[in-house]
Each structure stands twice: as C-alpha cells, then as structure tokens.
C-alpha cells in the first residue's frame, strides 16, 4: 500500500465520531462572520448595518487575486460590523447578523437533494462559479481554490488529487462527508476535470476508513479517469506535498507549489463545495465540523453554518465536559487552542476537540539524549534537534543552511520526543526569524 517515503508518526487515532451521520445544527440566533477566513487579502464588506440578508447573500467582496467572497449563512438583518477576536485573539473585521428565524435562502439556490450529474456550462463558466462561491481549501490551509485553478501559463496540469486522507486524530468530518456524499464528490471531481481540461483524478483515502474507500470506489467506478487509492495510515499524509508523494511518487521541489509538478490538490470538502456551487448555485456558507473529545458524551459530525459560535455547538454533544482543560479549533496535531468559546466557525474549521486535564498539559522538559527520534519522524527530512538549538541561539544563516523554511509545522518532532522538548516551538520561532531575515535582505 502506498504512503510517503520518509518520516511520519502514528498518533492514537481516537476517531470517536466515525460513522456518525452528519446532523444539521439548529439555526443560531446570531452569526459572526469574519471577513478574513482564508489566506490572502481579507474580503471587503458590501453590506451596511440594518440591511436584510438571506442565506447565501454575498456580504464580503473578494479584494484581490488571492482572496475569496464571503456569504451570509442565515437570513436576517446585519446587526453590526465590528472588530471581533478570531481564534488567535487578534481582532478582525466581522459582520454580525441577527437571525429572523425563517432561514430563507436566496432564490437562485437549489435546495433539493437530487443528484445532478452533468452540466452544459463551459469550463470558464464553471471556474467563474467556483471563484464566485468563495471556495477555499477546507482542509485547514484555506487557500482560495480559484487561485489553484488558475495555474501559471508555463505549467501543464496532469493530475487532480483529491485529499480524503484526514490524517489528524479525532477528526471525522471528511470521513462522514465521503460516506454520505460520495456521488456528489465524484461529480465535483468531474467538474474540476472539465475546468482543467484533463481526465486523471486520484482520490487518496487512508485505509482506516474502509467504508469510505468502498463507497467512493463504487461511486467513482461510473467515471473513467477517476481512481480511488487506499493509503497506509501515517501522519502527516494530509499535507499537500506528502499526499502528492504518496499518490504519484513525485516530490514537489522546495519552495514550489504543487502546480510546478503538474498537480492540483483539493480536499474532499472543497470538492463537495464545488459540486454545490456549480450544480446547486449554493455558495460556501456551511461546512461539516466534528465536535469531539475523549470525555465528550456524544461526539458527532455537524453541518454547521459558518459564523456559528463554537460555544453553540457544545449543547448538541451534551455540553462541555467538566474535565476539559483545553479546547482546540481544528485537529489536535495542527489545530489552535482557543481562549474563548465566542470564536466563530470559519471555512477552515474542520473540528472542535475538547482535551481533558491529563491530555492538555505538556510534560516536564528534560535534556536531549540525542536519540534521533525527531529526525526519524520528520517527514521533510530535517534535523529538528539541531534546528531547535540553532533557533534558540538565533543563528539565522545556519538555520537557512539547514532548510528551516521547509518545515511544515506538523509537530511530528515534538510528538516523538521522549524528553518532551518543545522542538516545534523553537523551530517555528526560528522559521519566522529566518523568513524575516531573508525578506529584509531582499
């Protein structure tokens, strides 16, 4: 079975909500929709206080090439446009909408669940619809999909890779989506193929999800050129560059985008959003979110309207468990712990994980014993113990020499360290300093 070549770890999977049906959440009374839910320039709000909006009304206009439109997720009135703290605690422009309780959608959106298999739209029209719908990479990196679909002229795209790996422990959002929307995802893949004018697509799924592999294989068998490939379980296989290596055996050169080797990678959730945007005219305003944790009573997958406060999801799983010491937005490996449950769900939030007291805290740091486990674990082939020391001493030229900028911050080194050293902390610090130093030189 295929996987990427070097490094990688096997954290305990804890997929507690696997196989649970996707339940739509009740419409929240208020939604807080940040204008910056993607990498790139924040969107510009195009509504004013007091405006009436429906679900699917555009409220934020993309403000550049690398940017994305933002849509209202409920119907109601714009209460306020204010700066609200996001998951990092820094304040960002946010549109606050109060629900009118009716949940009226824009008329253009097709709310039926019928599967539409083909369309007469031209590739350019499909691409325009994808860009208009504000679709971004929903695995967590939130890179606007429209940009991925506009590769530079000198590269030819040969493969579309669909990321159904979900290598983060606990999370099952993509898994449940593949179980329930396999057909739609395959149609989404067909649409992407049409946009790029190619006929090769590979869907990669880790083999801890045999049910999803079977479903997807059945759905994909109707289409020529779409192939489902089971992958060996290994973290961080969901990383773009590692998935490419695992599926087609090509290594993306350093500091290059996947397009440079003729590949476009997209998450299954994004592909599903493409289907909805093109076939149902539905812009991106809801997504599947896993709410889980070892002591959560009823870990589940929910279809959540973007802008719903994280706190509104807990009553649906039986409340925040008493022994919770940390709440993480995203997966436990790469997610961010949040300091308030007021923080809204955005396009990139794939899960909310409650960590118990025992799980949440770091263990006491001890001395490095040069065991080399971090070197073995690093999926890029870096030497984390060395980078840690160099970063501590701010030795920028040496850090650059040892390719610190290649680090993808997956956390495999910190996870595997028997001395509990905060390796990734220092590497991140060193990487930030190194990038700053090279920017200044330019």
């Amino acid at each position, binding site marked *: 079975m295929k996987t990427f070549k070097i490094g990688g770890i096997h954290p305990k999977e804890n997929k507690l909500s696997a196989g649970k049906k996707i339940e739509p959440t009740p419409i929240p009374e208020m939604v807080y929709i940040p204008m910056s839910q993607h990498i790139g320039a924040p969107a510009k709000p195009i509504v004013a206080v007091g405006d009436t909006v429906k679900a699917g009304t555009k409220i934020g206009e993309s403000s550049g090439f690398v940017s994305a439109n933002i849509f209202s997720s409920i119907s109601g009135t714009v209460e306020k446009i204010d700066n609200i703290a996001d998951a990092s*605690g820094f304040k960002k422009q946010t549109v606050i909408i109060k629900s009118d309780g009716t949940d009226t959608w824009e008329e253009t959106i097709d709310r039926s669940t019928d599967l539409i298999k083909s369309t007469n739209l031209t590739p350019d029209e499909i691409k325009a619809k994808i860009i208009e719908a504000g679709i971004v990479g929903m695995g967590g990196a939130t890179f606007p999909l429209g940009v991925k679909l506009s590769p530079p002229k000198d590269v030819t795209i040969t493969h579309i890779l669909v990321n159904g790996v979900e290598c983060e422990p606990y999370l099952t959002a993509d898994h449940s989506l593949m179980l329930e929307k396999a057909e739609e995802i395959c149609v989404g893949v067909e649409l992407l193929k049409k946009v790029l004018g190619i006929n090769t697509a590979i869907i990669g799924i880790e083999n801890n999800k045999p049910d999803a592999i079977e479903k997807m294989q059945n759905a994909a068998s109707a289409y020529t050129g779409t192939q489902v490939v089971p992958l060996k379980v290994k973290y961080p296989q969901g990383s773009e560059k590692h998935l490419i290596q695992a599926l087609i055996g090509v290594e993306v050169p350093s500091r290059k985008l996947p397009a440079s080797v003729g590949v476009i990678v997209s998450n299954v959730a994004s592909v599903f959003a493409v289907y909805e945007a093109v076939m149902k005219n539905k812009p991106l305003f809801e997504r599947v979110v896993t709410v889980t944790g070892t002591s959560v009573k009823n870990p589940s997958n929910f279809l959540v309207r973007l802008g719903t406060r994280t706190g509104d999801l807990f009553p649906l799983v039986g409340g925040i468990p008493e022994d919770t010491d940390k709440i993480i937005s995203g997966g436990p490996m790469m997610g961010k712990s949040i300091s308030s449950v007021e923080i809204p769900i955005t396009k990139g939030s794939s899960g909310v994980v409650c960590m118990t007291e025992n799980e949440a805290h770091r263990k006491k740091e001890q001395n490095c014993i040069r065991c080399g486990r971090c070197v073995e674990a690093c999926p890029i082939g870096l030497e984390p113990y060395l980078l840690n020391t160099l970063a501590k001493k701010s030795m920028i030229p040496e850090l650059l020499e040892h390719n610190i900028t290649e680090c993808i911050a997956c956390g495999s080194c910190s996870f595997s360290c028997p001395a509990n050293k905060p390796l990734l*902390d220092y590497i991140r610090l060193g990487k930030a300093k190194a990038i700053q130093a090279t920017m200044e030189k330019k």
Partner: protein
Amino acid sequence: MLVNTILLLCIIGVIAGFALYFVAKKFKVNENPLYGEVEAMLPGANCGGCGFPGCRKFGEKLVDSPTLEGLYCSVGGAETMDKIGTFLNKTIEKKDMQVAVVKCSGSCNKRQITSNYEGISSCAFSVSFYAGNTACSFGCFGLGDCEKACQFGGIKINPETKLPEVDPIKCTACGQCASACPQHLIELRKTNKKDMKIYVGCSNKDKGAVARKACSAACIGCGKCAKTCPNEAITVTDFLAYIDPNKCKLCRKCVEGCPTGAIIETNFPPRIKKEDTTTEANN
C-alpha cells in the same frame, strides 16, 4: 645539564624575538591611531545601540566622517560625546537624555487573564500565533524578550506584576529592548537628571469600552488629557493618547484628570522617590 637548558631557552628566545621583530615590521598594518584612542573613550558595551556593529566600528566612523551628525552613543551619553568631540575637534550633536518606558501597565490584577500559556518563554514566538493570555491584544506578554535583549540589566520582569520595569540608572537608551518587543510597547523618551517624566502607560487602540473591559488601566481615548493640557502636547489617535515629550512641560495636569490612571508620572515630589519607574498616579 641545567646550564645547557637555560642556554638553549635563551637562544630560542633571541631567535624568536628577531623573527617576531621582522614579522611585525613586514606585516605592519597602517591605521589611524585615533581609532584606538576613540574606541577607548567609548563605553565598550558593544550593544549596537548606535547602529554600528560594536564600539570599534562606531569609533572608526566618528574619526572618519567629516561631521558627527546622527552619530551618538546613548550609553556614554553627553559626557562621553563631549569628550570625543573636544578630542576630535568636531561639534557633537546635542541630544536629550533618554530612558526606556514601557507603555503597558496591565498588571495581573488589572487585566483579565483568559488562558494559560505553556509554550516556550518567548514573546516573539507567542505573538506569532495568538494575542496573549489576556483580554487585551496590545499589551505586554510578560515573557521577557526585553529582559533577554538588555545587556545592562536595565529592564527586568517584575515577578508579581509580570510586567517589565526599567531601572533608569542602568538604562542607557540603546534601544535593544524596544526592537525586541514584538508588541512595540517600549519607547525611548526624553527625561531629565531626576528622571521626571510623564507618559501614557498603555498601547490599546480599541474603543474605550472594549479597552476598559479588557484592562482597568487602559487608555480609553476620552481626550480629557488633551483638553486639559496647556501646552497642546497630547494628541489622541485610535482611542489612544500620546504625549509629545518635546512639548510636555511636566505640569502634571493630565495625570490628575485621567479617569483610568493610564497616564504615568515618575519621580515627582512629594512622592517618595523610587528606583523603578512605575510609580502609579492615583489622584
């Protein structure tokens, strides 16, 4: 036997002496003797506060450049610069005495703590992914990057308040702490011999209500100080007051009027003179 050894050592000594003499003659580097003398006058801290890599380079620059405009050693201060000026026969730029001030007074009992931080002790790192463990995203992290950057022991984190405190005697105004602070909370401000100064001890640019909710010592941008100031030294931008040190005449009217106590005065009589600079204005 002993005599032989001594003789041999003497001969080696003489030969080596001649060799060194010729080597020194042959490879002698001709340099301006003033360089060394000026360097000796400088404090030798090699802090980089002047913008040059160490005192030697700064000394060379002082000797070489025709005017001394923009060249100032804040560590040595006016005394050292005057000495160098008379030695080199050049006019020295006059500069006010400066000291670092921390524009955050949100100590533990004033700012609401929202989370526990367990990562490495570095402000630069923690700012890279979150806004700090308090409700104020502009304030001090208290992880001590400034303390680590200071070579003179002039700034220290107070373990009780978790805020840095400047020792005005040790502070040389080299600016290392100011550039180390990722939140840009440290400013070099004009001071006088008694270190009397007035400044706004807050950097929060949020609206008054939001700032006040996050921290009881926050500047809420009410503008009362700007109105009371007889010298028009205070401007309020983004809900944050700033006192221009060049216009401020140290009258203390703004300090008395500030509703949140965000304006800080130091070392004014009749208050007891303290070594640190965070004496609170409370009336």
